């Protein structure tokens, strides 16, 4: 990967910058995108597809603001090459709601004041969405402080002190557990 094997930088690469075509599903839509081979998934989403909801906070995989889901898993888009996502399903914050309705996490974040400056929020939501989906298919789903902290431990927030984010995720997680119990014929 990278720019034609020439290590001297992108300027030389402008003359022979290798373009690759990625075919993937983004938020449910099939797309074919021509991108420079050295571009990251984040660059492809932001510069090529105009999906600027995913943020660049550190460009080194430290802060989690770029978190999106690839094949269901949370992935740091700033350190994932676009070509590596060829053939995959990619989900970003723009695709989080269903049929025009906000995702339960989005509602909980808005109502509990979990988004302050909002810059970490898209990545935070994508990590939380993965946690919720895993909870929904768990044999014995339990909402625990440790599990939430683990699921969101890779997403930095500087505004909230995490208290309100934790509350919002826990609330949405409770809904998932209650729904699972209902589906399992529980006595709610």
């Amino acid at each position, binding site marked *: 990967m990278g720019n034609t094997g020439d290590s*001297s*930088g*992108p*300027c030389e690469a*402008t003359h022979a910058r290798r373009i690759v075509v990625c075919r993937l599903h983004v938020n449910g839509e099939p797309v074919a995108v021509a991108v420079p081979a050295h571009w990251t998934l984040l660059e492809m989403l*932001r510069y090529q597809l105009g999906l*600027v*909801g995913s*943020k*660049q*906070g*550190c*460009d*080194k995989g430290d*802060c989690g*603001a770029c978190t999106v889901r690839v094949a269901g898993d949370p992935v740091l888009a700033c350190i994932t090459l676009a070509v590596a996502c060829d053939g995959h399903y990619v989900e*970003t*914050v*723009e695709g*989080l*709601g269903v049929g025009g309705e*906000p995702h339960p996490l*989005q509602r909980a*974040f*808005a109502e509990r*004041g*979990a*988004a*302050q*400056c*909002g*810059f*970490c*929020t898209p990545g935070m939501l994508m990590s939380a969405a993965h946690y919720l989906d895993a909870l929904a298919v768990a044999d*014995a*789903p339990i*909402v*625990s402080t440790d599990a939430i*902290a683990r699921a*969101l*431990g890779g*997403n*930095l*927030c*500087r*505004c*909230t*002190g*995490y*208290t*309100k984010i934790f*509350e919002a995720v*826990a*609330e949405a*997680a409770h809904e998932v*557990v*209650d729904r699972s119990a209902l589906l*399992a014929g*529980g006595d*709610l």
Partner: protein
Amino acid sequence: MPKHSPISLPQRSTQPYSARQELPKLPHVGRSPDRVDGVDKVTGQTQYTDDLPFAGWYGATVRTPAARGTVTAVRFLEGPNWSEFAIVTAKDVPIHAQSVHAPDTSHGPSEGGHDTAVDLNIVQLIARDQPYLVRDAFRHKHEPVVLLAHPDRDIVAWAATKVLVLCDELPVILDHRVDPRPDQVQHGADNVLKAIGLRKGAGEDDAQLDAVFAAAPVVVHGEYDTGAQEQAYIEPQGMIAQVWLSAHDQHRPGWPSHPFRVRVQGSLQCPYYVHTAIKHLCNLPDELVEIAQVATGGGFGGKEDFPSIIAGHAVLLAMKARQPVKIIYDRVEDMLATTKRHPCTTYLRTAMDNTGKLLALDARVRMDGGAYVTLSPVVLSRGTIHAAGPYEIPHVRIDAKAMLTNTPPNGAFRGFGAPQTIFAMERHLDVCADRLGLDPAEVRRRNLVQVGGTLATGQVILEPVQLRAWLDRGLAAIDWVDKRSHYKVFNDLQVADGLPLRKGVGLATFMHGCGFTGSGEVNLASKCKVRAAKDGVIEICTANTEIGQGAQTVFAQVAADALGLELQDIRVIQPDTAQVPNSGPTVASRTAMVVGHLVARACDDLVRRMEDGGALAQARPKAMDYARPSKQSDGRGGSWQADDLRQAVAQVAGHPVMGEGWSEYEPPPGVIWDDVAYKGVAYGTYGWAVYLADVQVDTTTMEVKVLDFVALQEVGRVLHPTLAIGQIAGGVVQGLGWALLEEVTLDAQGAMKNANLTSYVLPTMADVPTIRVLFEEQPYAYGPFGAKGIGELPMDGPGPAVANAVAMALGCHVPAIPATPEKLLRWSTLSA
């Protein structure tokens, strides 16, 4: 199958909130409506600076390779096709120009005086010493030398690595605690950027103070250090500039000979700070410079002063490129080049009687200002005033200095000098308690200021503080007495059994002054405008920015209740100097209290103008059914039927007199400050707080785990409980980071070695407990509906509270933060 989880959530509430005291119920204030920017933020629709549609060139900055010296040459290496670039150096910026504006007095009288011929290449702030671009001499590593712009953002970043800055180096000074050698002096005769003396009682006279100390039963000395801290807003700094040259200059190279128009958009806290800076850089009158704030991903002070520099760079490139130019810092550049919290060393000497009553305080404070003056004088001022804490001390002498060092300038960061000196005093009081064999809470109880008492500046406390009662509530909340005794037993057993865990509780009592210090608010003379819009909505026009704290939401709440209307009748305008008056910067815990108050008063003015102009002649009056907003605001909109008022608002839209309401800051009576003697009412009011930490230390790794944290504060009326809790919890965790994790390490050239979020460690959700936020509410008569400021207060307490808890756990002195595992190992080994 387990159905229910072990987590119990607090009830989500839009109901009126009240702490213990019953306050009058209001329709919006004191409740927690969803924040106005919430939906856009959770759906990813909010556009930050780098998200805006942009057609233009990208900028990059080439910086100095050493800490101090003179640039001898700039070499453009092979590789980039340099003819494709716009390139700007200091040579492009005129040295002498006839200034077209009055001096900037927002920080008080200009220290440099007002020259008619000025170097445009100077960042206009308090002093005139920092250049936008190095002309020849430089004072810190990573100081800007060359600016590049190019249509391709990859190429410009790469090209910046192909510019070589050659220099002759000069001796540097990196330690603010030592006086400079002659060859290290770069500012005045001694590198002192600012010196402040504060005196009370016998502190006025050195011999008398010595006598007090000589006669005192208990004298305790101590030296305390606090480190630099990175603001670490998650959105890095970024600016977009656009320039419209006159027809005369459009095809002419060089600096424009005719006035031109500039528009800057970006991530910033203070539109009018950038406005002042850019009009000086471009030598343009007010109306030709427009600064607009874009949705901003956190600030914490880091986007108070520094955005002026990036904005200036983007403007210079846009002038050269004849294109809009965008500069977005990546995280590494942001951490290397922008400001940090001032490192600070505080030497304290206290005299006490045998009961723990403070007789005298003698303090020497030294802050590390970095390479230029920037905001250090005012940071030092707040640090000095807060050094004596919320205590009644008869005799005080504080000498404080901000010193030049060859690091990037330290700048504004939440708390603004106060967390540094408060750490020293609060840690010191625990040392004193230890010496006296008293409970640390008891030592504080005996010294906390009461109504009628005087602070170090001589300010008499007239507001109904009940610090002892608040201390008791905080102690009860964390179970202080039981935990102290249980933890002593627990620690003894762990030691006896050779086990590694230790536990401790610690506290801090402190205050934080709301708004600008001393005469600062009077100098600012902030203005606010509200205007009637055609759709019947009232638009709030202030320069105060939404940076996550919820400013837009609380302004809407205040305006709705000041007018007797609903939230949907209010629209808060995104700050843009072309649209909004100068209501001052978004700093200093002043936005809700000072500017929110201006919003209420501007609403009054709008209604008064409509009454006087006859627009409400047909409107039906109604009895005011709740309290007026403040002693200076009558909330007269509430005396008209809401439907009639709405209708009238739609009709006066655009009317030159009735269509607008204005307000300008008026100091509350009795707020008088002497900036020379450093005496008087330093702040119109204070937030008061008791913070308590419960920690466990694993002595195998020296990892500190915060088990519980109680943040209790009196902040006047809480305007929006959910937002207030969020802001306080955020400040506490930022404080915990400063206390335990966040360590800025410098190389031999004064540059940050760990300029990334891998090795500069921020707290994550896994590192902190749920912060328990408690309020007391004593309405302040000159804040909107009784509100005070809350933004900075939560930064002050976590450092000392957690350090005191760790000191109890380990049984050793904790003289500095961040108290990293390495340091804890050293200190605990030394004491053992």
